[in-house]
């Protein structure tokens, strides 16, 4: 069986003014020729710094942003060629959970209304049994029936995130995209939500794309990992390959930092920013003139591939 989601050469660019008052425009490549596959029941972790294009990628997959070019195949259906009316069934199959549970729930709707909306819209429940179904969802995400008639402001951040997860699960999707779902929560609550994701993964056999800047969380929850830097994939592979044998200097740096080794290299201020070199060139210790002149391509096996000329295996 082929992959459930297959993304190839996805690209999204934005035009921005060079400075606040000038008319000159520059192009920012937020998502730069990204290619990956996701198999059924697997969880793909996406890591990278802020501004590396993690969220833009997620929004492109949901078609909340229109990609400039590329192909997104979901169950052999090209999403970018779909018509507006066919998107309805797509939205049922792909759901997203946002970072901030404070702004992603409608403050004027009771939880029961928030949950029954997708149920009714996708005709999973009818008017008679919608409340029962909503209670079932609440139980699935670890809340009890009392929450049904509450407003979001009556709940804590962790509870709201549970509701957001419940709403995403309501339409019985086959792919769940979680965009930094725990980073705005407190440590003790984070652990509860991460456990909830593990349960969902095991119980519903759902495929998941889990975006986070915290490598430890991604390691905990993912099967495969994709490392982004300035919009491009620098390294991709299975969880153990990435964590035990990271190859790209950027991945190595991230892993070291997540384990508490805090001395990172400073960005070199000399050297012009060029479009035709490696994007990590300015921060890389290993870089030479070759890296400056040519863009490295992603090379390797399905288990582990990396975009670096200087790559040598290195064990932590």
């Amino acid at each position, binding site marked *: 069986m082929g992959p459930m989601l297959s993304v190839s050469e996805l690209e999204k660019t934005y035009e921005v003014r060079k400075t606040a008052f000038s008319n000159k425009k520059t192009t920012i490549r937020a998502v730069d020729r990204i290619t990956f596959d996701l198999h059924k029941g697997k969880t793909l972790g996406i890591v990278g710094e802020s501004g590396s294009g993690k969220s833009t990628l997620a929004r492109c997959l949901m078609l909340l942003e229109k990609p400039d070019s590329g192909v997104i195949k979901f169950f052999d259906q090209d999403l970018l060629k779909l018509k507006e009316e066919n998107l309805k069934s797509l939205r049922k199959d792909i759901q997203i959970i946002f970072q901030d549970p404070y702004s992603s729930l409608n403050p004027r709707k009771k939880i029961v209304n928030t949950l029954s909306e997708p149920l009714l819209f996708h005709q999973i429940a009818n008017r008679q049994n919608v409340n029962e179904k909503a209670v079932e969802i609440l139980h699935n995400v670890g809340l009890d029936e009392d929450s049904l008639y509450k407003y979001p402001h009556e709940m804590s951040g962790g509870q709201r995130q549970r509701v957001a997860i419940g709403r995403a699960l309501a339409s019985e999707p086959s792919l769940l995209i979680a965009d930094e779902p725990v980073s705005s929560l407190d*440590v003790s609550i984070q652990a509860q939500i991460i456990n909830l994701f593990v349960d969902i993964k095991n119980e519903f056999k759902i495929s998941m794309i889990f975006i986070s800047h915290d490598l430890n969380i991604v390691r905990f929850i993912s099967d495969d990992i994709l490392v982004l830097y300035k919009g491009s994939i620098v390294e991709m592979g299975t969880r153990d390959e990435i964590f035990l044998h990271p190859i790209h200097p950027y991945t190595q*740096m991230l892993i070291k930092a997540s384990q508490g080794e805090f001395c990172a290299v400073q960005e070199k201020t000399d050297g012009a920013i060029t479009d035709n070199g490696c994007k990590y060139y300015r921060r890389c210790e290993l870089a030479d003139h070759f890296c400056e002149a040519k863009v490295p391509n992603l090379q390797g096996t399905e288990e582990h591939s990396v975009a670096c000329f200087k790559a040598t295996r290195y064990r932590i």
Partner: protein
Amino acid sequence: MVVWYKKLAIWNWFSIMQEVKIIKNIFPCEFAEMLGSENNPLLAMVDVTVGFCTESSSAINVLENLNLVIDKGEVFGLVGESGSGKTMTALSIMKLIPPPGRILSGKILFQGNDLLLLSEKQMESVRGKRIGMIFQEPMTSLNPVFRVGDQVAEILSVHTEMKKKELAKKTIELLKDVGFDDPAQKYIQYPHQLSGGQRQRILIAMSIACNPALVIADEPTTALDVATEGQILCLLQDLVCKYQISMLFITHNLQIIKNIGSRIGIMYAGRIVEENRVDDFFREPLHPYSKGLLESIVGVKKVSERLETIPGFVPKLTDLPAGCKFHPRCKNVMAKCKKEEPSFINVGKSKWVRCYLYQN
């Protein structure tokens, strides 16, 4: 206008009544006695209570009977979840609590003087000069319309008698100290031209400009990326050694304290529930809350099926449980915990805990 004035009067009356009530509650504290026997710490907060008096309800105490000691040359990590009162602790040391919040009782001894007895004028010579502060958001704490160099120089010109040329020289020296290769060029740049990490460096330069004895760093790396975070932490560590500064480091990230801290305090619902040395804390935490926190962190090595969690959620300050504030979430809860709040007791050298498990 009259109505507004009346409201104000009622509010004043409210806060005064609240104060009277709280002062009555003060009991002799073991902490204060211990303090006398120890050799003068740099900063000691003794039974500090901070309350917010609102019109609708009685005062909400965001800090209650808070005890904290920072010795010379040590990095004290203050860890807690959001809303536990970490930032309020920092602001109360600087006496910058925004109204209607007020420090209702307690003592804040800094180099032997009680800061709470100082006038606003005297306090101005403490802020920035003897106690520096680094805020969380490097974006918002710099003025966007002034050159960063001038903003650093301003601190020096307020607190010292330096002339213009000296100021510029000293500022450039400071910029060099915080890791800029081209300090003269950075001097004339504006905040928007700098990256987040560079802005945080400028703030650090400002905080150490007058060679203070204590620097309060309030979540200095939370807004930064992993790599930049590493650089800033390294820099802070170097500066602490170089200038012999003590630091109060506020964060919600235990990993950071493990790396740079010498002692740690855990906050929960406006109270410090445990104070301990960092290595002892990570080997053998005392309070059930600290134990839960350490277990619920996604470890580096452990990849197991599920994480240990602390059940329930952080209580709201308006709706705190009676007795020990942690008891609804505690594994080791006893009948006593539900009735009366445990006091902050000493269980070994520089080990303090607020829990009945250690009270015999």
